[in-house]
Structures are given as structure tokens and as C-alpha cells.
């Protein structure tokens, strides 16, 4: 039985490696082999250099913006008596559920230099979102939760006696707040900011939508890779070489953030049931509330509102509801929505199940656990564009695995939904493993043992005693994966089979090339869908809390 389990675990890991590690090796080898333009010509091309600079500058800007807003927001929302904290927390967490390009569409509607709503109000040219600064700003807003949530989690877990000690030794409430919790939350916020950098450098939709329309165009690496890929078969090799450059940027930042994290790690964070004293804001309460509300309005409400307005406006600027009925019943929309639905659901199921299996492997074997943890973590950290190109290069028709010089194995996955699904699963597997592992860590072994002694075999004990305790974390992994995949763009735009669409690519095409108003309708419908899901869940949770 144990041998069988072990063999299964090894098989699972080998299969995972085949779709995550092997493609990257192929990417490295092929980029080195230098088909298409040689590496050196491509990397010394001024366009490439320009794109690299744009990528680094916009990502640094995004990281700075998320950090600058995210850490103070975490402190104010977690540790003060600001009114409406629950609402604000929900509002600023919204970017985790709504894809970045929808925020970009909102800002295009607000601040495109000619026809943006703000510019119509304040005079043409007041704001221009088609700049590197604009890209950094939109990505910074979209990345805000990556800083705010981990910082808030640390703030909630700090042992209150640490602060009480500071108070006893004579520090005032504000000083205590700054010297103990804020100081301890800094490493989490800093590594969150590094994540924002990675997320920004890897993002495609926002820089493409904002950078291509700029004059002069401000392409980033991901946009250049997309463009090379669009050139046809030869372009794929250039895309490969550019991907290598993007991968290097990501690896450097990842290494730096690891170092940062190690230096600032604090082991003092402890258990549960801790009650923190809230900082009484006193006379600062009103102005701080207004400032937070303005920030929520500017960062969250305004762009989403602008998307709604854009969906209800004709090109000439008149109000109309005609778009909605038209767009939502269009065959292409329905087709894309159906694709997104089944692909997203499949991906969410696979990620949740695989995540649980890997978490179980991790509990049994330290070595296999390490390996599987790495296999799940690394595609998540890797830019999606790089993963997509690596998979495309690995599974293109001209690559054959030849065994014993006889059997040629061609995995004809190129241009199929299957390859896109594999890519999505690899990219988001970390959602599943992380949630399942955290959930499992909280389940005491004795729950399963009690079932065994009561007469249940190992499988029954797992299904009856352990699995029910994992419902919440697995549900969270499922929902997060589904929502992310349902609107995924970065991987989909490169891997979509010809003449097919998912919601992300459809919105992207409509917005960039043909019909921004139609794009706004779909985006708006999706936002409403997310709000409804989140609202229902909040209602369900509060009902449940009341019932107990």
C-alpha cells in the first residue's frame, strides 16, 4: 500500500515536471541555439533595450505605489478605530478578483488624453494614462492587495504582549504602533512589494493597452514578446530569446526578495485568539476617514465606474443601453464565455485536487514534499509570458522526443485548448498546494486516528475525518483559481487556438482593435458577476456566524 502511494506520488511529480521544468530547459536550449535572429543582435537592439527599461521602470513604480499605499492602509484598517473598516478592506481587496486589464480599461476611459472623462471635465491633456507612469500607476493599484494583505495578516498575528511591553516601558500609543507592529510588518510588506514588481514585469494586458496607444509607443518586454509571437513561426524564436531576458529579470528580483525576506523574518508571531488594542484616532479620525474614502474612490470606484459609463456610451458620447443587449447575445461573446467557463472550471478542479494530493505527499515524505513544493511554486513565480512561450516551443510540431532511435513521440498539443489548460494549471497550482497545505497543517492527526480506531480504513478515515476540515481552504483555492482563469489574458493571448477566444482574449481584442464599448460591456458584466459572488459569500458567512 505504501509502495503504491509512493509510486503514485513519484509519477505525479514526474508528470508535473514534464510540464513545468522540461519546457523551461527546452526554452533555454533553444534560445541558446539561436534560430531566428541571434541572441546578441536581438538583445542589443535598441527596441529591446527600450522595452527592458520600460519594464523595469514601470515595475519599480508599481512596487513603490503598492508599498506606499498598501502598508499604511494595512495599519489603518487593521489597527485603528476607523469607521467602515470592513467596507474599505473589501474595496481594496477587490483587485485580487478583477483582472488588471479591466482597471486599465477604466483608466483609459478616465484619462486617455483626448476623450477621457477627466480630461473632458478638466480640459484636454490634463491627464495622460498612455505613459510609463500611467502603466506603473494602474499596475500599482492592481497590485495593492499583494502588499496590504500580507502586512495586515502579520499585524493581526503579532503577540499583543510585545506592544504592552512597549507601553509599560513608556512609549505612547502611536510610537508603540510604529516601533513594534509596523516595524514587524515591514518585511512582509517589502516582500509583497517585490511580488508586485514580478507581477508588473510579467503582466501583459495593462502595458500593451496603455503602451501601444502612446506616442511614441512605450512597449514593455511582454508586449515585444507578444508582437514577435504574432509574426508567425519565425517570430517564435525571437519571442523565445526575449522571454529569456524577461526570465532573467524575474530571477534577479526573486533572488533579491528571498534575501530581503530572510533578513527580516521574525519568529515572534504566534497563535490564535489574540486581541489587539485599537489605536484611538481621536481628532484625526475624520480627516483620515475622508482620505481613505477618497483613496477608495480614486483607486477602486472611479475606474470601475468609468468602465460602466463606457459600456453605456456611443462613440459620439451619447447615452445608450443598446450595447448591452447586443454584446451579451453576440455569438462570439457566448462562445468565449462558454470556453472560459469550462476551461476555468476544469482548471479549478484540477488545481484543487492536485494541490490536495501534493499537500498529502508533503505530509508523508519530506524529500518528495520539497520537490513538489518547488514544482508548484516556480511556475507561479515565473512570468506567464515566459511559461507560455516555453510550452509553445516545447510542444510545437517540429520537436519530437525520440526513444531508442525508433519511437518518435509527438505531443500534438500545439494550438489546442489542452495546452492552455496545462499552462493555467501549472501557473495556478500554487493556489491549490498552499491552501491545502495550510489547511492540513491545522488538522490534528488524532482526528484521522480516532476514525481508524472506530473501524474506518485509511481512505474512509481521510474522507470522513480529514477532508471535511479542509472545506474552507479548498473552496477558497477553487474560487480563486476559477476567478483568475475565467479572465486570464497573459497566457491565453499567446496560446489560444486559431479563431477561438476566451473572455480575456475577447475583451482584449475588442478593446485594442475593434470595439472598446463592447469590451466595456463584457468587463462590466464580469465585475457585476464578481461583486455578486463576493456579496453572496459575505452574506452566507454572516448568516453562518449568526447561526452559531
Amino acid at each position, binding site marked *: 500500500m505504501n509502495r503504491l502511494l509512493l509510486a503514485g506520488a513519484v509519477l505525479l511529480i514526474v508528470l508535473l515536471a514534464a510540464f513545468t521544468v522540461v519546457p523551461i530547459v527546452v526554452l533555454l536550449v533553444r534560445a541558446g541555439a539561436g534560430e531566428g535572429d541571434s541572441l546578441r543582435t536581438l538583445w542589443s537592439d535598441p527596441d529591446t533595450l527600450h522595452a527592458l527599461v520600460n519594464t523595469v521602470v514601470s515595475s519599480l513604480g508599481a512596487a513603490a505605489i503598492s508599498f506606499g499605499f498598501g502598508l499604511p492602509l494595512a495599519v489603518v484598517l487593521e489597527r485603528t478605530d476607523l469607521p467602515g473598516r470592513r467596507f474599505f478592506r473589501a474595496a481594496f481587496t477587490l483587485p485580487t478578483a478583477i483582472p488588471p486589464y479591466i482597471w486599465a480599461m477604466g483608466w483609459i476611459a478616465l484619462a486617455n488624453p483626448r476623450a477621457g472623462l477627466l480630461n473632458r471635465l478638466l480640459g484636454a491633456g490634463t491627464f495622460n494614462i498612455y505613459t510609463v507612469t500611467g502603466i506603473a500607476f494602474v499596475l500599482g493599484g492592481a497590485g495593492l492587495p499583494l502588499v496590504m494583505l500580507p502586512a495586515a495578516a502579520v499585524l493581526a498575528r503579532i503577540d499583543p504582549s510585545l506592544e504592552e511591553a512597549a507601553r509599560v516601558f513608556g512609549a505612547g500609543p502611536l510610537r508603540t504602533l510604529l516601533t513594534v507592529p509596523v516595524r514587524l510588518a515591514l518585511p512582509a510588506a517589502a516582500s509583497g512589494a517585490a511580488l508586485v514588481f514580478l507581477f508588473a514585469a510579467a503582466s501583459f494586458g495593462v502595458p500593451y493597452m496603455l503602451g501601444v496607444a502612446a506616442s511614441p509607443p512605450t512597449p514593455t518586454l511582454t508586449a515585444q514578446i507578444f508582437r514577435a509571437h504574432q509574426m508567425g513561426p519565425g517570430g517564435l524564436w525571437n519571442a523565445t530569446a526575449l522571454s529569456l531576458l524577461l526570465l532573467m529579470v524575474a530571477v534577479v528580483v526573486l533572488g533579491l526578495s528571498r534575501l530581503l525576506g530572510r533578513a527580516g523574518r521574525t519568529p515572534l508571531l504566534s497563535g490564535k485568539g489574540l486581541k489587539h488594542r485599537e489605536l484611538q484616532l481621536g481628532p484625526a479620525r475624520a480627516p483620515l476617514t475622508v482620505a481613505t474614502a477618497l483613496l477608495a474612490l480614486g483607486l477602486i470606484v472611479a475606474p470601475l465606474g468609468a468602465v460602466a459609463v463606457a459600456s453605456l456610451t456611443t462613440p459620439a458620447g451619447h447615452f445608450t443601453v443598446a450595447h448591452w443587449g447586443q454584446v451579451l447575445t453576440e455569438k462570439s461573446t457566448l462562445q468565449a464565455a462558454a470556453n472560459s467557463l469550462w476551461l476555468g472550471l476544469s482548471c479549478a478542479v484540477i488545481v484543487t485536487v492536485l494541490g490536495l494530493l501534493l499537500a498529502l505527499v508533503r505530509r508523508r515524505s519530506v524529500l518528495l514534499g520539497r520537490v513538489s513544493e518547488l514544482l508548484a511554486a516556480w511556475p507561479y513565480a515565473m512570468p506567464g509570458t515566459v511559461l507560455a512561450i516555453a510550452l509553445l516551443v516545447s510542444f510545437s510540431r517540429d520537436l519530437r522526443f525520440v526513444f531508442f532511435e525508433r519511437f518518435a513521440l509527438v505531443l500534438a498539443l500545439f494550438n489546442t485548448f489542452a495546452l492552455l489548460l496545462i499552462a493555467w494549471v501549472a501557473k495556478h497550482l500554487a493556489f491549490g498546494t498552499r491552501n491545502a497545505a495550510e489547511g492540513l497543517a491545522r488538522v490534528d492527526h*488524532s482526528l484521522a*486516528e*480516532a476514525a*481508524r*480506531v472506530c*473501524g474506518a480504513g485509511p481512505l*474512509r*478515515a481521510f474522507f470522513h475525518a480529514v477532508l471535511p476540515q479542509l472545506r474552507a481552504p479548498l473552496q477558497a483555492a477553487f474560487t480563486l483559481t476559477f476567478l483568475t482563469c475565467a479572465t486570464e489574458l497573459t497566457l491565453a493571448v499567446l496560446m489560444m487556438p486559431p479563431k477561438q477566444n476566451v473572455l480575456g482574449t475577447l475583451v482584449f481584442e475588442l478593446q485594442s482593435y475593434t470595439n472598446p464599448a463592447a469590451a466595456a460591456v463584457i468587463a462590466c458584466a464580469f465585475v457585476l458577476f464578481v461583486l455578486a459572488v463576493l456579496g453572496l459569500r459575505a452574506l452566507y458567512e454572516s448568516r453562518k456566524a449568526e447561526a452559531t
Partner: protein
Amino acid sequence: MVRLEQVHKAYGKTAVVKGLSLEVAAGQMLALLGPSGCGKTTSLRMIAGLERADAGKIFIDGREVNALPPEARGLGMVFQSYAVWPHKSVAANVAYPLQLKGERDLAAKVKQALSWVRLEALADRMPHALSGGQLQRVALARALVASPKVLLEIAALRARLGTTMIYVTHDQGEALALADQVAVMNRGVIEQLAPPRELYERPKTPFVAAFVGGANVLPGAVDGADFLSAGVRLRLPAEVVPLQGAQSLVIRPEALVVGEGETQLTVVASLFLGHATEVRLDVAGTMIRALAPAAVRPQPGERVSVRISRAQLF
């Protein structure tokens, strides 16, 4: 009912249980008593089948069970953490072993089991709405409901039941009060297996004497009719045979009489216990305890005379 023969268990290179043999007759209660890390919980888990013995044999009801998984052993167990499943109601927790056995009449049997632990009123509650003591009773009802051959317990116990029981504890008072037999374990071996009274009155090793009766253990050697411990001469009571080659003297606190005898010792501390005074005395660096009447109140630093009324040599 339960028999262990030369059972061994090691985790990596650390041997946790070394050659454990014991037997519990049907209807009897055995307490495994010892300090934490002595191997008592591991022994219980091996009987339950939750750990596999490296060597030796385990019999339940005359049948060797080494290769049997826990679910096939027909036992009941109460865990230290109680392990009451949080997603099931009290009644559903208790019904589970019956469901697995495919029994009918669940409701009546669950009701009866809950009545044993006086929890009928809470049958529909979820575990998070219960106190620690109530959870413990749910765990007990669940362990008893399917009439197991043997009940294994790690949690604190307050009553005797009719079933065969093996019970793990580090509380000597509980073990002495309830068990038919007590196995005192230390570092993976049983130091003594005996009924409570015998254990208290005739401990076989200094460890058992110290752990069960809270006795003082003094290192040293016999010298004539005296015992010499680090230069301090103690007169042995007349009934103690001055065994040559003995290495330690074991004296219970109540057998150390303060205010009589020839040996002079320095008082380290004097603790008022209400019904008595515990006098702590210094024997060349080793602290020993004497139980004196409440009226005796020596001051720290004071020299007092001490007489040994009963003692054992090992």
C-alpha cells in the same frame, strides 16, 4: 485480554520502548504511569495499531494483532486532544463507530451511550459549542458505544468502567486510586508492574519509589549500621538490613522525623501545607523533603535533628 511480549519500538536511532511485556486480564484496569517521554503513549498507540511494533508480539483476546490495522482490532480509544470531529454533531460523533459496523438501531444505542456520560441533552450540539469536559465525555461515549474489547485512554479519567482498560497517565494519584495494576515506565522499560498498594509499599527501584511515593533518594554507601551520603552519616532504622553494596537510600517524606535522632541537618526551607509542614533539608548538596506536623516550624538556616523511621536500600 491484552498481552504484550518483548515489544520494541524505535524512531530512527532512538529506542522509545525496549522489550515491553505485560498482561491485562478481562475486566481489569491497567495504568501505564511514567514521566513524559517514557514510552507509555507509544506503547498504547502500538496496542491500538496506530504505530507498528519493530519487534515483539501484541495479542488482543488471544489473537496476535501485529499485522492488523487499527480498524480491525475492535478497540475504543479516548485521545488526549479528544479528537471529537468538529464537523459532526455530538450524536453523529457517537454514532460513527456503529455506522461503520453496519449496526441498526443507531438512535437508541447513541442515546444510551450519551446517557452513560450524562450528555443526552446535548446530542444535537456541535462540538465548538461544548466545554473541554463535555468534549471529553463525548470522546468517552464514542469510544464505548460499540462495546469495544478494550478501552484505551490517554485523556484524564475520573471513573472506573466495567470494560477492560489500559490507561496512560503521569498523575500517580489517579493511577493508584483507580487501577487494578500499575505499570511504572521509565525510559522505555517497565520498572515495576504491580497492584497500587504493593507498588507504594514495596517499590522495586529507587525510580518507582521516587515517582510513586515522592520518596527522597540519597546516593551513598552502607557503613556499619549507618548510611554515608557525601560525608553525612545517617542512622538506619533497626528493621533495615544494612545491605553491603547498596548505592542508594530511599526515604519517604513521612518517614523522616524532624526533632528526634542524632543526625543534624540544615533547613533550606519550610513550607506550610495546612495539615502539615514540609521541611526541606540539605544533605551535602542534595535536597530532601520531610513531612512534619503542622506545629513544627523550623526557620531556614536552622540546624535540626532528624531520625529515619522507615527506609529502603537499593
